């Protein structure tokens, strides 16, 4: 545990120091990695801890991004209203979808979370007068906070995202170590046994589902400020599936693993897109390779190595 706190502190120190050495382009890439890291960790709470493989997690990210974007553009660019509203909408939509999705399990759960996510995609795509349809919402402004630094600048915005990332990681780490989080692990391993031991399994799963939606919403909030733009593609199955990939690639059930997985995917996309047009093809191959060769993720691989060298 102390080793974990120590390595966390080192990682945080590195992240605090990095702006000193990175170009503004690299810094913006790192900002994106942190935001997608929050998104991947939020899905890990569902997938890695509660054992619920959602294929519609983009819904909560996208709803929050659209909520903040619409409010900032059409109502008022007021952080203290827009930001909580984004979180609230993400939590509300996951609270609604959870009622449907948690009646099922396994492949049905995958299929239904996918279909529910596509409902929102369909609304964003079809309701042009509100959402701008396929063109999305351009020119979403960044918030103005009573700080000496403007968040429109790369470095202050990076630190703003880093604070959110550190808070989210800390809170999620607390949740998974709590009696509630430990019960989720038990549910992942054996639902029936947990019921017989006195756990109201549905209630645990539901709360996990809504919490995961809330943290995905946090990532969506940050992303729309970061990107200044949101389109239906941040609601659809491709984005949902990429979140699953980030979690598996990093290591499901390890919390920090998925953040690393997110950084790897964001980094690779950036690198490969610079050299060729076929990023989607490469991404498809990554899905297949990860499934075949790294089912327990990068963190899992490292742990195996360590275990082997120790033994």
């Amino acid at each position, binding site marked *: 545990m102390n080793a974990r706190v120590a390595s966390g502190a080192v990682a945080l120190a590195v992240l605090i120091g990095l702006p000193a050495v990175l170009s503004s382009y690299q810094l913006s890439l790192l900002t994106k990695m942190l935001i997608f890291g929050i998104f991947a960790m939020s899905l890990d709470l569902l997938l890695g801890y509660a054992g619920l493989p959602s294929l519609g997690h983009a819904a909560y990210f996208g709803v929050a991004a659209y909520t903040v974007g619409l409010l900032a553009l059409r109502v008022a660019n007021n952080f203290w209203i827009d930001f909580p509203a984004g979180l609230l909408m993400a939590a509300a939509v996951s609270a609604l979808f959870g009622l449907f999705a948690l009646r099922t399990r396994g492949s049905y759960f995958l299929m239904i979370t996918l279909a529910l996510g596509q409902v929102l995609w369909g609304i964003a795509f079809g309701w042009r007068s509100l959402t701008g349809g396929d063109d999305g919402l351009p020119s979403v402004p960044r918030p103005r906070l009573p700080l000496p630094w403007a968040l429109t600048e790369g470095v202050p915005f990076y630190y703003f995202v880093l604070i959110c990332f550190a808070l989210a990681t800390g809170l999620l780490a*607390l949740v998974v170590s709590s*009696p509630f989080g430990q019960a989720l692990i038990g549910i992942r391993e054996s639902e029936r046994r947990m019921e017989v031991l*006195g756990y109201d399994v549905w209630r645990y799963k539901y709360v996990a589902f809504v919490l995961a939606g809330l943290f995905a919403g946090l990532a969506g909030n940050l992303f729309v400020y970061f990107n200044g733009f949101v389109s239906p593609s941040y609601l659809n199955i491709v984005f949902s599936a990429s979140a699953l990939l980030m979690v598996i690639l990093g290591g499901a059930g390890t919390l920090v693993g998925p953040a690393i997985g997110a950084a790897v995917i964001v980094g690779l996309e950036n690198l490969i897109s610079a050299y060729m047009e076929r990023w989607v093809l490469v991404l498809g191959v990554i899905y297949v390779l990860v499934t075949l060769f790294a089912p327990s993720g990068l963190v899992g691989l490292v742990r195996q190595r360590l275990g082997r060298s120790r033994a």
Partner: protein
Amino acid sequence: MTALEIDALSHHFGGLTALSNVSLAVAPGERLAIIGPNGAGKTTLFDLVTGIIRPSAGRIRLFGQDVTRLPTHRRARLGLARTFQITTLFPRLTVLDSVLLAVQGLDPVRFTVHRSRERYGHLRERAESLLADWGLADRARQVTRQLSYGEQRQVELVLALAGVPKVLLLDEPTAGLSPAETASVVEMIRRFSRDTTILLIEHDMDVALDLVDRVAVLFQGRVLAEGSKDQIRSDREVAAIYLGTDDA
């Protein structure tokens, strides 16, 4: 007052009748064996009593309270615990973590989100003392699926005991065990508190009669006979079924 009262319970699925009009009453502290050939409906009866499946007709009462419509976890909180025939432990968790989950299940902190479980020392103390009591302390750090089958059965019994159940349902606790392992599990059950009411499904007649006060025989979803050990031993119908179909 009875500890557990099963009143005219029936269960149908598809076109099949798994249980038909089964009534049983168990007094507090009593130990009842339920025997019968495969397919007699024994495990179905346990699934009904624990609420994993719902009956087609009939009532189930725990200490006088009607629990027929209550979900499984609510029955657990009334003091009902069980083991499974097919081990459904937490295969990838350590023994200690498994027992912690069992201890936590009936503790008020089970739904706490905002504090680490490590801060609740009483859970850990209780889990460790349970493991020490049942001779599994040296297995605490091992991952459950790495234990021998016999040890897994013992862990399963400890999980069931963690909540200090008033009524405990044991579904073939010795199935698939070697004679030595069977002996240690039997020894363990014998040490259970006499306050705990026990229903035991057991294929091995010797084991069953060794552990209980009274026996009920299920056959084709009905209670064929019920009585003291001696009554059942001398029942010719029971003997016929066991000589004819017992394949254990």
